[in-house]
């Protein structure tokens, strides 16, 4: 299994630690971005963005069910934006434990990060990335 390079997800070697996203925090203005970038997009300082662990949980900003999928993905599938408590609002897919049905997700609900295959397709089954699932559901986290 390979981690999707650009996804910015980190799998700690200590099994007691849960996965997180590697974001960047500007030491000048405090802005947090994901993925990390060298220049702060807010204050435009160069070299002030430092590593920060983010994204273990979030709140659902918006969601929809896509009925058609690009190559390497299977429809129907949820596509969502999640507000992370640290600041960023990020695009994500939803973990496989969550059934793809209307009414399952509600904007504003608490979400938690899981790490799993990008998609159950020949192209993407061996690529790991971050996804989110409703925090309230006690589904088994699908760490590989």
């Amino acid at each position: 299994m390979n981690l999707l390079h650009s996804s910015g997800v980190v799998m700690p070697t200590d099994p007691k630690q849960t996965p997180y996203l590697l974001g960047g925090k500007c030491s000048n203005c405090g802005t947090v971005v994901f993925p990390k970038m060298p220049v702060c997009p807010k204050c435009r300082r160069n070299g002030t963005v430092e590593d920060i662990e983010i994204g273990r949980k979030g709140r659902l900003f918006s969601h929809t069910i896509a009925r058609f999928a690009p190559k390497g993905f299977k429809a129907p599938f949820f596509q969502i934006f999640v507000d992370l408590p640290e600041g960023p609002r990020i695009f994500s897919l939803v973990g496989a434990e969550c059934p793809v049905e209307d009414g399952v997700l509600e904007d504003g609900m608490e979400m938690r990060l899981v790490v799993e295959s990008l998609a159950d397709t020949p192209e993407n089954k061996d690529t790991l990335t971050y996804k989110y699932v409703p925090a309230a559901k006690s589904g088994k986290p699908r760490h590989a």
Partner: protein
Amino acid sequence: MREVAIIGVGAHPTGQFTDKSLKDLGYTAIWGALKDAGVTPEDIDVAYVGNSLGGLLTGQEGVRGQVVLQHSGITGIPVINVENACASAATALRGAWLEVASGAADVAIAVGVEKMYVGDTARTIGALSSVSELDLSQMGMQFTTSYAIHPKINLKGKMKEYGWTSADFAKPAVKNSYNGSLNPLAQHRRALTIEQVVQSRIVVDPLTLYMCASISDGAAAAVVCAADMASKFTSKTPIRIASCVLRSGEYRLPNDKRLDSATVSAQAAYEEAGIGPEDLGAIELHDAMAPAELMLYERLGLCGPGEGPKLIDDGTTTLRGRLPVNPSGGLCSRGHPVGATGLLQIAELVWQMRGEAGPRQIEKRPKVTMAQNQGGLLLGQDSAVYGVTILKS
């Protein structure tokens, strides 16, 4: 800066043209524009050629502009290849305008050409996704989804915020499908009803099939020259470029209080042209998903927040209304061959301003018009490109 006029436009019809290459599509548009302008290939000092997907879809990764122009007899000049996603053609026009405005060239041509039918729809959709930042596209983000839930427009959220309904979303599609039914260049020429649009299959909630632009082949071109030289070439009404604005998107954080980028680029275009929204007589705007037109009404300063559907209900933006929007049929009916769209918009406006638009001619020939073109998606929660051009006759 010198004043610049568009003296000729040309277009290839939009739709599926299986046997035609980029060169063939471009040829029709280029020679349409040359003849319309009364110029020969030798008169062209410089060319900008917009194309977005030709590398991935046709395999012609480099020098597409030179390839297309050579096929049409235009050689031995500076040729600038322009890739700027769905706003490639607006970007090409800006380049041509700037060459002439600055005095570097007297006559320039802007071309937009796209070949999307390659016998494998999944490949085309994949190529289309790739004009957004890779971090998004490789996670499965699609343009359809972005219109539905992306923070920059979030149509699904607007249903809650504004009380817009599925029927409201269908209104621009219905209006534009009627316009497209009158346009011989249009890809889809069937006038649709609200029921047909709402009941067509769901692509991504809340967008249905007839609310989404389909894939398309097509091309368009415009010849521009110094305004004071226009009469040397043609007796037709020269159409002056009053402003030609291009902006990249902003990196936006969730509580970003700055104005939306479509709004900012429109305001800049109004200011540069010295006019306001009330002066416009027609608009061609970027309705890749038809309901986006409702949001663009407010962002272009035509109405207040949430008031978009009213402009269609009261007839304002219909073909016979005070300010017709997308008289060509827009992206969903006229067609959206992505790298050609910005110049297809310009061609339509030029025909309307000259009174040459046939059955879809706006009764009161517009004297001031706007083309609004945008494209690509960035991680920073904005589109990548915003282009606004204002024309005056």
